[in-house]
């Protein structure tokens, strides 16, 4: 799960107390403090309207922070126009210049920098070879497929060796197979060229596949910034737990907390032990987070007292090839999902009364939803 390239700890970009509002009433970005490390692949992930694209646009220079500043190295860039920031950007719909050929598109950032013609030619050729489109150099963007245009946009953003590359949902318009292929290609470029990439997406699968770190945005705030595995395994609040991957929620009230373990009385009856993560003190409401693959189905009482155990009725079994999804109805959650490894559902049938069992360390007590 960890990104291939080990990012250095040297900070390249720093957001310091950045706020942004468009209408003067509502903050799109509430208070952003974010360090982007040199060489890392950082993904800004969140639902639409969460502030992730605004953050990217402020970094690119197309939007000005209402408050706070952004630093590249030690240099504040609030008043630096976009063309002087030396940041490569790949746009959502590629924004290839339709009146220029592929070659001219890729040459554009070099020629506006006054790079000598011979060198431009050489570097453009190298860039087009890198994306394996050297044979299409004299075509116009309209004559290329979506995937080819995407690669040209990448080459154009990389050809001038920018300190930082921004990508704004660059794969959104591609079909699934091509998208997966491009994810690997972008990751390969990131690793071989040692790029620092800030990538915006609302597709969590994409984020998990490609990133060294992911910043989960919601409501103008970074909810959690962490490595993909940590985000999935150890979400710090209910939003992250629900946004990343499948999640089962059980609601209840905290009875007591002892050494990091919380005893929670469920609203629907029953009591479970969970990791106390984000609950405050005893008496507070909490939402328990359980990953579907961390829950077992037991047909009888195994007597293992270290496990939490709740009665449930199996309502459906959905065969999905590599695993089977069991849908259960419990008093606490009428649509409780359990992922069973392939071949391990023998003896189960819909309508059967069973128990769901899970370890306290796999159950995280988070803020109430």
């Amino acid at each position: 799960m960890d990104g291939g390239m080990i990012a250095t700890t040297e900070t390249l970009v720093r957001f310091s107390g950045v706020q942004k509002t468009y209408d003067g009433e509502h903050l799109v970005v509430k208070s952003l403090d974010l360090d982007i490390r040199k060489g890392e692949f950082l993904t800004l992930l969140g639902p639409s309207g969460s502030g992730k694209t605004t953050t990217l646009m402020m970094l690119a220079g197309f939007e000005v922070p209402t408050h706070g500043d952004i630093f590249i190295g030690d240099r504040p860039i609030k008043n630096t126009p976009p063309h002087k920031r030396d940041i490569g950007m790949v746009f959502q719909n590629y924004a290839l210049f339709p009146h220029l050929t592929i070659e001219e598109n890729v040459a554009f950032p070099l020629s506006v920098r006054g790079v000598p013609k011979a060198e431009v030619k050489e570097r453009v050729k190298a860039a087009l070879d890198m994306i394996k489109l050297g044979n299409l150099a004299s075509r116009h963007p309209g004559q290329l497929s979506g995937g080819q245009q995407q690669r040209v946009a990448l080459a154009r953003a990389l050809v001038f060796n920018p300190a930082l590359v921004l990508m704004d949902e660059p794969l959104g318009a591609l079909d699934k197979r091509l998208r997966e292929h491009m994810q690997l290609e972008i990751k390969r470029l990131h690793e071989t060229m040692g790029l620092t990439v800030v990538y915006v997406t609302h597709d969590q699968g994409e984020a998990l596949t490609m990133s060294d770190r992911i910043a989960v945005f919601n409501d103008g705030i970074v909810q959690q910034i962490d490595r993909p595995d940590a985000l999935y395994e150890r979400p710090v609040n209910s939003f992250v737990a629900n946004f990343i991957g499948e999640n089962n929620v059980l609601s209840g009230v905290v009875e007591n907390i002892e050494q990091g373990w919380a005893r929670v009385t469920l609203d629907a009856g029953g009591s479970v032990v969970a990791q106390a993560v984000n609950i405050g003190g005893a008496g507070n409401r909490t939402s328990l987070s359980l990953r579907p693959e961390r829950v077992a189905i037991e047909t009888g009482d195994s007597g293992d007292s270290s496990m939490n155990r709740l009665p449930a009725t199996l309502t459906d079994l959905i065969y999905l090839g590599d695993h089977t999804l069991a849908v259960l109805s419990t008093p606490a959650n009428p649509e409780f999902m359990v992922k069973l490894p392939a071949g391990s559902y023998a003896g189960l049938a819909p309508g059967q009364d069973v128990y769901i069992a899970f370890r306290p360390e796999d159950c995280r007590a988070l803020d109430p939803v």
Partner: protein
Amino acid sequence: MVRKRLLRLLNRTMPMTAAFVAGADVPLKRRLKRAERARQFRALGLVLPLLAFLLFTFVVPLAGMIWKSVDDWEVPQAMPQTVAALEHWNGQGLPDEAAFAALAADVRAAYDAGTLAVAAKRLNYIVNGYRTTLLATGRKLKEQPAPGTAKETLIALNPAWGERESWTAIKSASGPVTSYYLLAAVDLTRNADGAIVHAPADQSIYREVFMRTFEIGFGVTALCLILGFPVAYLLANLPTGRSNLLMIFVLLPFWTSLLVRTCAWIVILQSEGIVNGSLEWLGIIDEPMRLIYNRFGVYMAMTHVLLPFMILPLYSVMRGISPAYMRAAASLGAPPTTAFLRIYLPQTIPGIGAGCLLVFILAIGYYITPALVGGAADQMISSFIAFYTTETVNWGLASALGAVLLLSTLVLALVYGKLALGRQTTGGLKN
């Protein structure tokens, strides 16, 4: 039983096989065409009313106008015998006695029928004073001269009949078609020997008028482009609500008549008008500036009237240019000016082309506005066409001037079409 069933089977399969084979014989393209035919007929039916309308209101009058610019009917109609007699005359010296006799007969007949004046007017275009010669001859020639004396009788009546030019004029105007009007429209004429030469200086005005027409056309087009481009840019980049509001102001001139708008300029620009009055009141000028009945007034009023025709095509093209292009250019390191010149401007060229073509073609046909706010030296070709159709009833020359104007417009449209097509074939203009 079995045989019967076999036969039936055979009967059923045979035609199918035959049809299949027959189908394979016909090339796929022709079969496709056959299948599409019904659809094409229906489409044709739908556009038929428009085609008929265009035929009768556009194609037929246009063809009529072009025909009028070469039609030479007056002299053959009034003087058929003379035309026939001169058919084999080589144009050297004077024609023979038979031609004189034919002329005398024609003149008498036409004078009585009242058609002589029309032919006289036509011949007068070629030789100044011909009208008097012919009409006087018609008036004085009481009876057909005795055989053999036609030549001396006519020359005695009017010495002009003893000059070769009088006869070459008839021969050159003896139809059925003439290049006279078209040549005259570009200040050329034929001399007595039939060679194309420059028209006499006092008749050479049309080249200058055409040049003036194109000059005003170019000037107005350039002004519209300079004034319209920023407006179109603003409209295209504002939020829809506000751009719609501003668009109403752009279209506002369309809601008032051309005549009213032009007269409004007279009110504003005249010596006692608003502009001069304000400037005098402010003490900037001591006496009224001449703002109207000169070229300035023509440019001012025509630019105002034609500006929407530049803004609309520009706006529609600019609206389609995503702001992402300018952002992309900036992120790639282009300062705003470079980004504008290298990325934005080239993408607006289809709009610039369409707007310029539209404005220019409309401008060179302008008649009312220059007539009202221009001086004598600012009249464009249309006012001469109007003059010849309504004042002197010289349809031939009016048509020829119109034909030359049409031709130059066509050439422009073709050049534009070629350029537009050239852009298309070099690859997708839009994503």
